[in-house]
């Protein structure tokens, strides 16, 4: 039985970390192991781009919704959807920077713009079974999957007023790509699929450079992260330290079938894997 311990002016609970400094590297290492508990290892996370899909309006949104309905009818894939904020979020940020709002204030504001896309998507998917998921109501997921309901998660991480000062510039570093990756990682999901408007990740922006080269299947260890990037740079750091997520896939949501193929585990678009995880 665990005991209460006193004698140094404090009341402790007996444990491996009792009286220890949680800043001490040796103490911290004692909590470490190579693997993490995997809570939902057969689930994929699907992130739908704000700028790349939603800002294009009906022409891009409706075919993607059709594809999602088709994938759902198949009932073999378990997945959670997240959405990006796109141009309204960029506008929010532009105004916030102009006003001189603190970084944490900007982080508090941006999530609302993503939520609009989540509501749009849910409005279209609800007749086929979907629900917005409350911030961290992860423990409802087994119920959702059993009932054939596709949850739409909040993508911006809750860093809010506590967004750390960024390494560069003034804008928050923890955006929706990072937030969704982190959600997939903490829940032990097998992969995260980013649905964008390009056939994958390129070595430079394919909209600006005709000779841009697309990455196919590539190990994260071999990937020189391009400066012009359709994903948050924070995401690559998070993937590098991740223990659970095995694949990050980037597919084109304007091309029918790419998302379905990625969900089936096929190599489509750009597949970034971690050599250590194979």
């Amino acid at each position, binding site marked *: 039985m665990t005991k209460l311990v006193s004698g140094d*002016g404090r*009341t*402790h*609970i007996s*444990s*491996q*970390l009792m*009286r220890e*400094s*949680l*800043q*001490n*590297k*040796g103490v*911290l*290492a004692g909590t*470490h192991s190579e693997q*993490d*508990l995997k809570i939902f290892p057969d689930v994929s996370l699907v992130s739908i781009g704000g700028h*790349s899909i939603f800002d*294009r309006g009906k022409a891009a949104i409706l075919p993607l919704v059709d594809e999602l309905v088709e994938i759902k009818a198949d009932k073999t894939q378990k997945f959670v959807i997240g959405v990006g904020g796109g*141009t309204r979020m*960029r506008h929010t*940020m*532009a105004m916030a*920077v*102009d006003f*001189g*709002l*603190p*970084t944490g*204030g900007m982080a508090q504001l*941006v999530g609302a713009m993503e939520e609009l896309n989540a509501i749009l998507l849910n409005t279209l998917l609800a007749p086929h079974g979907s629900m917005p998921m409350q911030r*961290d109501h*992860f423990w409802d997921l087994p119920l959702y999957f059993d009932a054939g309901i596709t949850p739409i998660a909040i993508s911006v*991480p*809750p860093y*809010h*007023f*506590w967004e*750390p*000062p960024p*390494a560069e*510039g*003034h*804008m*928050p570093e*923890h*955006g929706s790509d990072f937030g969704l990756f*982190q*959600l997939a990682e*903490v829940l032990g999901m097998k992969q995260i699929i980013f649905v964008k*408007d390009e056939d994958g990740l390129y070595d430079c922006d394919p909209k600006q450079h005709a000779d841009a080269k697309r990455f196919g299947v590539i190990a994260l260890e071999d990937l020189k992260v391009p400066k*012009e*990037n359709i994903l*948050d*740079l*924070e995401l690559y750091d998070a993937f590098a*330290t991740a223990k*659970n997520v095995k694949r990050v896939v980037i597919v084109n949501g304007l091309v029918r079938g790419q998302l379905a193929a990625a969900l089936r585990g096929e190599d489509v678009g750009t597949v970034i894997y971690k050599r250590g995880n194979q």
Partner: protein
Amino acid sequence: MSDGGTTAGSGAEGRSGSIERREIPVSAVDYSPVAVMPDVKVVKIGGQSILDRGRAALFPILDEIVAARKLGIQVVILTGGGTRARHIYSIASELEMPTGIVATLGKYIPMQNARMVQMLLAKHGGIYILPDDFEKLPLYMQLGCIPVMSGMPPFGYWEKRDENSRIPPHRTDAGVFLSAEFLGSRRAIFIKDEDGLYTDDPKKDPGAQHIARITSSELVARGLPDVVVERKVIEYMPRAQWCKELQIINGLKPGNVLAALQGQDVGTIISAG
């Protein structure tokens, strides 16, 4: 709209980074930050160092905070975790829980501590506030309240993993620093059970010298296996817009808390640089 997307502004920066930096208008490149509530003193009451010592340590500290408030000094109290946090961290680590789960578990103990402090301060205007309640601080301050909240940042399941550890790297020290930074407060005050930094552990070496001032880079250069505040805070300090100083004081010595709240340099000051 030539590329099928709708853009919000012209590209001032050549690439997309986090939160897509490329669409910010040129006029916004000159960022002139506005301090939200620069007069507020953000104060941490340590978990293991103070709260787990019980009333003998805590009550005199609260008395000094109340005295400061009566002098018109605006104080927000954030609480640490302590031994109960260590206990749950220990069990969760054994179960190989991901850091995001450990961080979520870690939210509850500082929250309990904040509620305890609120009950003790209620008669002096102590109110328990949640992370989102910063927006109501102007009212609470005008009413003479002493807001009390958990020091744990709300990252929870979204907390990042640290190398070689399952313990969340952003804990209550980070929450105090980041609160001060958001509010535009110049100095965050940490009430602990030691006078700040020494050249060596004063409990083991009686000849250890007290350090009154040190910069964050000097602290890093010492390469200590253990540091007085969370490493994340030391990492963030040089990038801070507002919170450029941490003050670590011994709350067990009468007068220190009030002196620190009045702006005096007691304890150790760690400054960004």
